[in-house]
């Protein structure tokens, strides 16, 4: 009997904990977004966050996209050559990259780089009283620390994904023309004939949502961290794990909304 009660109590505690977490996250997100639109504004901090999230993530995102495009072309060729469908490789590469792989892989990479850095920075500020110090200096920490990062995430990720899309297609192009014997003209014509504006736009919408999620989870976990170095480490891990899971889950939901008619 005691075992059953303990089991039910554990389920109840888990459910309450989940609801509490989601409530806190929702309030945090709402406050952060509201501060984006209310003065004072911190353009210098927005530019700094854009550099942190966008510019400094460029090498890792670029390399990921390039190699993904190359592998995609190679793997597609292996499979499609069995059915004499090699001509579909260009469209497979461009559609996979723009619709899915560009935003998702860029999101996961940026989450691991910029999201972790955000959580570590805010977490350290929390445990060393720097966030409390902001409050005593007539500055709202949500406005100063969180709002610029949320905005920068939403702006930087679509820009990164634009570059990832181009490099992903270029990767496929290089492998297809240099290794698989495609002529450059034919490959490019095939690429652009199957690409529609909505393929790119949907990828950029996903990127903006993922950028928001990465910044939100980085800020949320860092802002709430406690317990010194161990707490900052846990916050950083949690920021990357939760953002990565949410990116993959939201990718499915957004694909359902954007493409399934």
């Amino acid at each position, binding site marked *: 009997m005691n075992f059953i009660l303990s089991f039910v109590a554990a389920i109840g505690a888990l459910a309450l904990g989940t609801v509490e977490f989601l409530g806190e996250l929702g309030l945090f997100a709402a406050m952060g977004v509201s501060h984006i639109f209310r003065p004072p504004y911190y353009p210098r901090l927005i530019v700094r966050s854009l550099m942190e999230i966008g510019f400094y993530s460029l090498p890792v995102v670029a390399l990921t996209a390039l190699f993904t495009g190359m592998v995609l072309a190679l793997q597609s060729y292996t499979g499609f050559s069995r059915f004499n469908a090699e001509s579909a490789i260009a469209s497979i590469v461009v559609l996979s990259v723009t619709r899915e792989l560009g935003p998702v892989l860029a999101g996961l990479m940026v989450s691991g780089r910029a999201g972790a850095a955000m959580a570590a920075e805010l977490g350290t500020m929390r445990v*060393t*009283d*720097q966030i*409390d*110090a902001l*409050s*005593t*200096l*007539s500055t709202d920490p949500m406005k100063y620390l969180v709002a610029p990062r949320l905005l920068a995430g939403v702006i930087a990720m679509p820009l990164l994904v634009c570059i990832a899309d181009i490099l992903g297609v270029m990767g496929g192009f290089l492998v297809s023309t240099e290794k698989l014997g495609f002529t450059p003209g034919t490959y490019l014509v095939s690429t652009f004939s199957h690409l529609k504006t909505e393929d790119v736009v949907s990828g950029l919408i996903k990127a903006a949502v993922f950028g928001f999620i990465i910044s939100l989870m980085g800020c949320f976990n860092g802002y709430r961290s406690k317990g010194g170095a161990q707490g900052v480490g846990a916050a950083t891990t949690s920021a990357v794990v939760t953002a990565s899971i949410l990116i993959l889950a939201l990718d499915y939901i957004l694909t359902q909304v954007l493409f399934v008619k």
Partner: protein
Amino acid sequence: MTQPKIRIRGLKKAFGDKKVLDGIDLDVMPGTGMVVIGGSGSGKSVLIKSIIGLVTPDSGVIEIDGEDVLKASRGRARELRAQIGMLFQNGALFDSLPVWENVTFGLLAQNKIRRSAARDKAIEVLAQVGLADNVAGLSPSELSGGMQKRVALARAIASEPAIMFFDEPTTGLDPIMGAVIDELIVDCVKRLGSTSIAITHDMASAQRIGDRAAMLYEGRVCWSGLADELMTSTDPVVDQFTHGRPHGPIKMALRR
């Protein structure tokens, strides 16, 4: 009768089952320095954080200039608290900003100064805490513990606050540097005519920077009086604490 600058009545705060503040009553008169002492976990930091607004008390009254900040509108409470400067225990300097931006952060946030004039202002305030102008361009991580404390003090006094809080100002400093920081605190507070509250475990520091003292024990003020009387108090709790006696009414949670 003069109205207290800060008046606290029946202040209570609990975290879960643990009552940290259990009905604090405290008056701090204008232009005087109050030192709050008490063991670790006695609620000193929670008391200061409640006044600043970093912690929301469960009940009670916190008046600044006769106005209850807990009942004031958010904007008015922010205005009342804008006259408070705070020196944090570990300095809490912003490590992403150079020293001069740390010092003038509050002034820039309140638009009391233009960014182009901020560096000169920072150098002026740094001189008041005995730091040379070449420190202004350094990062906080390039400074020693004593210098960081001075920069933090410069940041706290830059906006010339009417109320100043000092959270264990001499912790982690050698005795000479501790005395230097105390002297700077007394100088700054006197020059600005501020009211101050300091929390400390350092009895020598308490007597140097405080006019009056209050001891927190079991969530309440168990003793208050002149800071000079701290070491000679006959109150058993104060006597045990100030002389660091292992046996007495204060029971430390030790596991053997």
